[in-house]
């Protein structure tokens, strides 16, 4: 059981849809399950409960996070990562957990427009920032340019890494517009406004791993979006 099960969402902004009511119910059930975890030896969660007992129990905090332009008030264990909060408590399951150690990029989200690994971001540290997940970038029928480009170039196979790839690409485009450099910009001697070659794209996207190996098509999508040259 991950620490996120000790989360309960408080004061949901608008509980209007049946889905959100369901989320709220689930959050309550999740919070309740922790109480039993300590005595239910052998069930997942025992480790956390023991851990908490030894060190004096979990530290809960009430925080307000702005996620996809919506204020979310939550009471969370300080150990909760942003990724676990999104997926397990707020039902924003687009962001994926691959390695949970900042090595695969499947959990990539935007914090104040910058791409970060949400699995290594403690949720309590994201207070005051604007968090954008794949759910906030577009929707069926109103895809973002990056989402459309991945569709057009078939930049995925199983799709598990795709939300991270798309969030990463969304930030990459802004980085390129700002003239930001990569290690390749130095190798090619183009530190004054690097041309976005495939070499640049591969370096700049290296924080997103695709186990299906859809890389050629991902590169093609990013190339189209950045006006790059192969």
């Amino acid at each position, binding site marked *: 059981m991950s620490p996120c099960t000790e989360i309960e969402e408080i004061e949901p902004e608008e509980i209007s849809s049946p889905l959100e009511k369901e989320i709220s119910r689930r959050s309550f059930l999740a919070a309740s399950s922790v109480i039993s975890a300590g005595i239910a030896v052998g069930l997942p969660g025992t480790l956390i409960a023991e851990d908490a007992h030894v060190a004096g129990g979990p*530290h809960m905090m009430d925080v307000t996070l702005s996620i996809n332009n919506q204020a979310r008030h939550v009471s969370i264990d300080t150990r909760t990562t942003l990724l676990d909060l999104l997926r397990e408590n707020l039902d924003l399951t687009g962001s994926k957990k691959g390695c949970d150690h900042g090595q695969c990029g499947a959990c990539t989200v935007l914090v104040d427009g910058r*791409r970060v690994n949400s699995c290594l971001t403690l949720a309590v540290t994201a207070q005051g920032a604007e968090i954008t997940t794949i759910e906030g970038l577009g929707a069926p029928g109103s895809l973002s340019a990056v989402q459309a480009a991945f569709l057009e170039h078939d930049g995925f196979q199983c799709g598990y890494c795709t939300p991270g790839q798309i969030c990463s690409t969304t930030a990459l485009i802004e980085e390129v517009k700002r003239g930001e450099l990569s*290690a390749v910009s130095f190798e090619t001697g183009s530190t004054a406004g690097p041309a976005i070659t495939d070499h640049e794209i591969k370096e700049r996207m290296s924080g997103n791993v695709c186990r299906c190996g859809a890389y050629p098509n991902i590169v093609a999508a990013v190339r189209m979006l950045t006006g790059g040259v192969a």
Partner: protein
Amino acid sequence: MNPFSYKRASTPDAAIHAGMPHGAKFLGGGTNLVDLMKDGVERPTALVDVNHIGLDRVEAADGGVRIGASVKNSDLANHPLIVRDYPLLSQALLNGASAQLRNMATTAGNLLQRTRCYYFMDTAFPACNKREPGSGCAAIKGFNRIHAVLGQTDEGAASGLTCIATNPSDMNVALYALGATVEVQSAKGKRSIPIGEFHRLPGTTPEMDTNLRPGELITAVTLPAARFAKNSWYLKVRDRQSYAFALVSVAAGLEMDGDTIKSAGLAIGGVAHKPWHSADAEHALAGRPANAETFRKAAELAMAGAKGYEHNNFKIELAKQNIVRALTVAAKGVQA
């Protein structure tokens, strides 16, 4: 992960005060600390968030530059002053980690990165003197491909002192070649630590990575006036082309006078418990013509006394050849 309290500090003084309890740690980007907390290697009882204490500026100072402790690696690498005057630092930073991690990681956090020794990072291995002083060293007779060949403590696998861990940072290697200084602050006041005295060799205390004292907060890193803006190169050799730690890396800076080297900065990463800075090699470069013979002599001096193990013997010659290569590229002035 063990439970911890969390406090966001708003000033350095508040952070230092909040960080006083035993077991508290300052939290920067969290890319290394949170990762190690997940694995139970780090177990702080309190985290003090130092990302919002006004140390996020890069500014010209005293002929050089002053870099705030919480400046993100990506912002530092792309800062116009750094790109123009200290391209070696930009290049090193951009060779580290991924775009996502560079957006999170801070200057101070990068200085304090812990080793990626597999045995240190995995608590399933009981023997690690860095994690549990006195428990022995699983690496010395284990899979030691990424481990140290210089400055290590080698008294055998069972010894409570042995440690052949390496410092994993790219940024740190550039800071050694550039002659940086680390500014720290505590309840007792402020002090400045030359970068060469900031990190430690394992010696008899492998559990200690640095000479930071309890309660001290890193506030800034300063660089002296730029000497290598036109002639520098960061060369990183790794098992894949991007997003991997260095097997060997070289930060080379040359101050040129025509074809003659006026002064040099040279540091090697991936070979020791701290970036390996050889004053002998730098002296051997100064006043000499920039050619292969000069560079190879410096490489031999830099790696003098190196000792490898079953899986990392290759690093010694790899480092020498790449010192020559980095110096050769630096001398050509690609960045000019």
